[in-house]
């Protein structure tokens, strides 16, 4: 099962492993098939922008402005095509950026080839020369969010407010601290502390611009979030970070109990509805006679 490593210390969710694996395989097939057809800027937007900007400052990964001046093209192309191999080889520069990135390793982007890496480097080089790159990322204000922002974010999360471009509401796959009883979806991780995990507004909003996991990418590729929606969601996640994540085992016990009591209630209801059903003839005769004292 391929998962972005920055989610490694998530509480284990209750998705059955084969299901998650199947979803991942599907998503991978989907994304790789399409990655070939994309042009480079789109590829960058979808695969790189959730951790990197060009001239927008560092997020999880470093700002890529002028990266070709910091390292040789050959090293960069190598690193892009197989970041894990370079990191495992003990390369000191790779170790350095690994540490700087809070030990989140660079994932291998889907559909990455030597040729694509070269094209990406060309793109970064070209964009670095511009005064304002299109990949500067979403610049979110540092002003405190209002209660209205938080409420709007919650509405988007729960699906009460539809996403403008038709994306799926967060609750379908994610749970969060203040979703009652049955909780949200269990496919994705609990998002109560996602604000802390992604280290603040900038990275979180960058992530939301182009969610990069195998499961989220295909779901949101054609339904990108609007800037206002990202704003509201970040406000909501920032507010949520003040709470501890809901205990998933507690949820599961509630769910189990609800199921058991529901089933029992149904059985009683059926038994009541068919109270006079046929249950044999001889036994009731004998019982009735015994009751009469015969």
């Amino acid at each position: 099962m391929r998962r972005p490593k920055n989610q490694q210390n998530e509480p284990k969710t209750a998705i059955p492993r084969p299901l998650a694996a199947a979803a991942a395989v599907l998503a991978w097939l989907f994304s790789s098939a399409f990655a070939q057809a994309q042009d480079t800027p789109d590829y960058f937007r979808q695969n790189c922008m959730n951790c990197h900007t060009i001239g927008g400052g560092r997020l999880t990964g470093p700002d890529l402005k002028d990266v070709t001046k910091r390292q040789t093209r050959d090293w960069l192309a190598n690193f892009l095509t197989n970041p894990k191999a370079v990191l495992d080889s003990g390369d000191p520069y790779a170790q350095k950026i690994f540490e700087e990135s809070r030990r989140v390793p660079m994932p291998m982007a889907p559909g990455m080839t030597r040729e694509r890496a070269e094209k990406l480097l060309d793109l970064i080089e070209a964009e670095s020369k511009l005064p304002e790159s299109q990949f500067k990322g979403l610049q979110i204000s540092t002003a405190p969010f209002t209660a209205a922002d938080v409420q709007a974010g919650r509405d988007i999360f729960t699906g009460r407010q539809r996403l403008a471009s038709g994306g799926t509401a967060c609750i379908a796959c994610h749970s969060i601290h203040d979703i009652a009883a049955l909780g949200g979806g269990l496919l994705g991780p609990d998002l109560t502390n996602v604000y802390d995990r992604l280290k603040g507004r900038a990275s979180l909003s960058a992530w939301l611009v182009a969610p990069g996991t195998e499961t989220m990418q295909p779901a949101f590729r054609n339904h990108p979030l609007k800037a206002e929606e990202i704003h509201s969601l970040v406000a909501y996640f920032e507010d949520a970070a003040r709470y501890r994540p809901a205990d998933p085992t507690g949820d599961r016990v509630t769910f189990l109990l609800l199921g058991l009591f529901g089933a029992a209630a149904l059985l009683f209801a059926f038994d009541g509805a068919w109270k006079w059903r046929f249950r044999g003839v001889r036994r009731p005769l004998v019982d009735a006679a015994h009751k009469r004292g015969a």
Partner: protein
Amino acid sequence: MNVRSQIAMVFHLDKCIGCHTCSIACKNVWTDRKGTEYMWWNNVETKPGTGYPTKWEDQEKYKGGWEKKGDDLQIRSTGKAKVVPNIFHNPHMPSMDDYYEPWTYDYQNLFNAPESDDQPTARPVSMVTGEEIAVEAGPNWDDDLGGSSIYAANDANLEGLSEQQRLQLSSVEQLVFFYLPRICNHCLNPCCVAACPSGALYKRGEDGIVLIDQQRCRAWRACVAACPYKKVYYNWFTGKSEKCILCFPRLETGQAPACFHSCVGRIRYLGVVLYDADRLEEVAKLPNDELIEGQRSVILDPNDPAVIRAARENGIQDGVIESAQKSPVYQMVKVWKIALPPHIEYRTLPMLFYVPPLAPVQANKTNDTIDHVSENLFHDIDQARVPMRYFANLFGAGNEGPVRYALAKQKAVRWHRRAITVGDVDRATADRMLREADCTAEEAEAIYQLTSLCTFEDRFVIPPMYREQAVEMLKDPHEHRQSVGFGFSAGPKRGL
């Protein structure tokens, strides 16, 4: 007129001694296999009683038989709408408890028990679990026991009896019971055949025997639920339903069915009758009080030239027609009208008829002497201990008329023979009795002959079955012989 032939039966209940020899003969021949332990294709019930399975006559519980709805005849247990919701389970079926848990005895213990101060015993062992069981029910649990508070008191035929009549049935010196042997009725309008979703049940064209194709049966058990007489049984081992086959392999070789052959009281009669298949639907829809006469009208006179001609046109062999002319069943049912169908209100038109039994008269106990209300101890039918209403429920679809007619005729035959052989009854009284019973002296003599002096050949007029011709309809014997030889149904093949 669409003439068909049907093997029909009469059981003369006045002669049944309740020995169960018929049941045992049947059991030994057909149902001592695994999965059939609880089945009694032939069983004998003590009446009044609830029978086997318990209260099979109570169709409010078992929903068997046909029901007239408007102009339509519908199966009570199933239908287009009920098939799907009941697809895995027919709700109104007898459970094992309603039949009984079959058991045997640990006979080996009689030989193998270690020496001790007591006699070894053979304890009852369940044939279902193999564990020792406390037997508390059987296929005729109240055998020879009238008036029991559980079984006799719950007989479905007691409906319409006054409280006093019910009490009499269970009071000392009034107790009465008779026996009702039962097999499949091989009905003219069989509900089991109509209910089968797999088309596994069929009524044999040449003799009307109702059979279950063991290859096609899919264990839906719709027949078990549909048969109002509960004479189809489910074999839990083979996963197929089974029923009385009227010993057709014996019939085909000219022998009476095992239960008929073994009957000690010689109560059983068997013969072929011709009937008009075109009128079945119309008759099955008649109101309750016209059903008996309606069914009789379907049975055709085998001596009528028009009937004979129509029968020949329908491919009925001359041998079968001759056999129908000698049929004792035709005499008892159609000519003498002393044999009646059981519960014809289920509208399956059963082809097993019963001659209702005469019962002793009621008695009073004053001080220490017992007075009978009638001097004619066994002959006064309206003072009989079994109320007429009870017989009417069992054999008359609720109508006393046909039952009283049948009993009066039997009574008249007795008085007639009494006047001849003993002479303590004067001839004039006997003749008056015969007139009242709509009976001539010749008819009385014929009834007497067939009832009391009947030979094996009189009782069982088995038609030639012409199986060779029936077989030719399905396959050419010469071709079959050339492909596999006789003695095989499928040819031997090379390999495992």
